[in-house]
């Protein structure tokens, strides 16, 4: 660990041109099977970032997941989001030279606060604070969605087939489901419904694709950073709005539709104020159904990792047993949407 701290601190010193560097704190941060995150607080003398500085170093974990972005891709996505005014960690330096630490990594600024969903949802925020935070989430997404293709720096991101993000997702998820031997009639039924009820596609924009409670940092009632950009892709803006509102991410506060924090009306109002786009709530609800299917498939894939012996884990095994919850929500939400039509 300490040699890794030296490696990273020397790297930062070189990048900033500091005369000297002292490691104040170095620890491995929790979360992330795909990558390792380290907190690195340094005292820098001279250079262009003098004084005490808190960074996060993100590098590939030994077992990478093929379907998410690589570290260099993630770095470029983060640059685009940061430039668009999204409250994300500032991406500082990418190191693709494996001679330095043995793996590809990048350094970004460290935000204050916590990303813990339980802390946020069960914490003592007032109604006004909740509304403030929900409005902030809407504004962040509105800013992110100003990033549009084509962009040379993001050429590695694929465009949705036939410019229809919903039908592209349905095809992708059907493929995932076919790879799983165990039958899941509810998911088959829901995918048929999603194919038959796909809305007119909106504009294609940069979507975070994992924008939910647990993946943004909050300090008090202020959002300090949107994290976890490894699933970013070109898609429909409502994919992000629907994922954020999906019932699976309310952490027990089911009546607060936006990530267990607040109301969808406030989210969409703030999104409209910043983007000028009036989003149809029915389309967001459609993408909430998509979100349930996606999360069910991710859970099935995680359970498969346990069952195949690739990664024996009680947590992964229990995640497999959660799929019935998403299926139950699908059986309730689809008829609700049909009644509302």
């Amino acid at each position, binding site marked *: 660990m300490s040699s890794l701290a030296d490696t990273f601190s020397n790297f930062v010193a070189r990048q900033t041109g500091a005369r000297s560097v002292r490691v104040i704190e170095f620890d491995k941060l929790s979360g992330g099977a795909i990558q390792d995150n380290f907190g690195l607080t340094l005292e820098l003398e001279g250079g262009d970032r003098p004084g005490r500085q808190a960074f996060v170093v993100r590098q590939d974990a030994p077992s990478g997941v093929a379907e998410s972005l690589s570290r260099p891709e993630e770095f470029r996505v983060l640059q685009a989001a940061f430039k668009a005014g999204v409250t994300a960690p500032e991406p500082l330096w990418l190191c693709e030279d494996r001679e330095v630490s043995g793996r590809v990594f990048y350094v970004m600024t460290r935000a204050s606060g916590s990303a813990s969903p339980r802390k946020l949802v069960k914490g003592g925020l007032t109604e006004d604070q909740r509304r403030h935070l929900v409005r902030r989430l809407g504004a962040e997404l509105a800013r992110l969605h100003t990033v549009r293709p084509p962009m040379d720096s993001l050429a590695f991101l694929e465009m949705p087939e036939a410019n229809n993000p919903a039908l592209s997702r349905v095809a992708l998820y*059907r493929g995932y489901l076919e790879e799983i031997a165990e039958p899941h009639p509810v998911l088959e039924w829901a995918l048929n419904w999603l194919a038959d009820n796909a809305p007119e596609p909106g504009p294609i924009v940069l979507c975070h694709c994992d924008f939910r409670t647990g993946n943004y940092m909050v300090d008090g009632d202020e959002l300090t950073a949107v994290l976890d950009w490894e699933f970013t892709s070109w898609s429909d803006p409502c994919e992000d709005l629907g994922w954020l509102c999906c019932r699976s991410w309310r952490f027990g506060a089911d009546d607060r539709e936006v990530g267990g924090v607040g109301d969808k009306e406030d989210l969409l109002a703030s999104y409209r104020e910043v983007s000028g786009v009036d989003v149809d709530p029915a389309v967001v609800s459609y993408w909430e159904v998509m979100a349930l299917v996606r999360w069910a498939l991710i859970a099935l894939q995680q359970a498969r990792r346990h069952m195949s012996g690739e990664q024996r884990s009680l947590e992964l095994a*229990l995640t497999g047993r959660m799929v019935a919850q998403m299926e139950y929500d699908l059986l*309730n939400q689809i008829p609700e949407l049909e009644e509302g039509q």
Partner: protein
Amino acid sequence: MINDPDTRDLLTEAREVLLDSLAPGLAGEQKYQALMIANAMGMAIREIEQRAEGEPEATDRVLSQFLAGHQLPDDPLQGEQTLARALRERSLDGDDPELRSVLRGLTEARLRINNPGFLK
């Protein structure tokens, strides 16, 4: 063969010891692990109870009846596979209330084992 106390009893008692005696003294990652173990044991206990009540067979029977009524093979061991394939091939009407009721029955039966608190 009689082998008392039975498995359900053993698991129930073990889970109580875990939750009442061990878990309160744990913190952080270890507490999380203890609660995951208790969760898994709870599922195993409920699965045994559901089996004793003949629940899985009852759910399979409803599915078999539905499949037979739709001219599909009604082998109970293959029932869900048959249903999933028929849906994928679009040979069933997704709006059919009977289909939806069968899907709900299967899902609720799983939730009664995995997480009964989730049922509304």
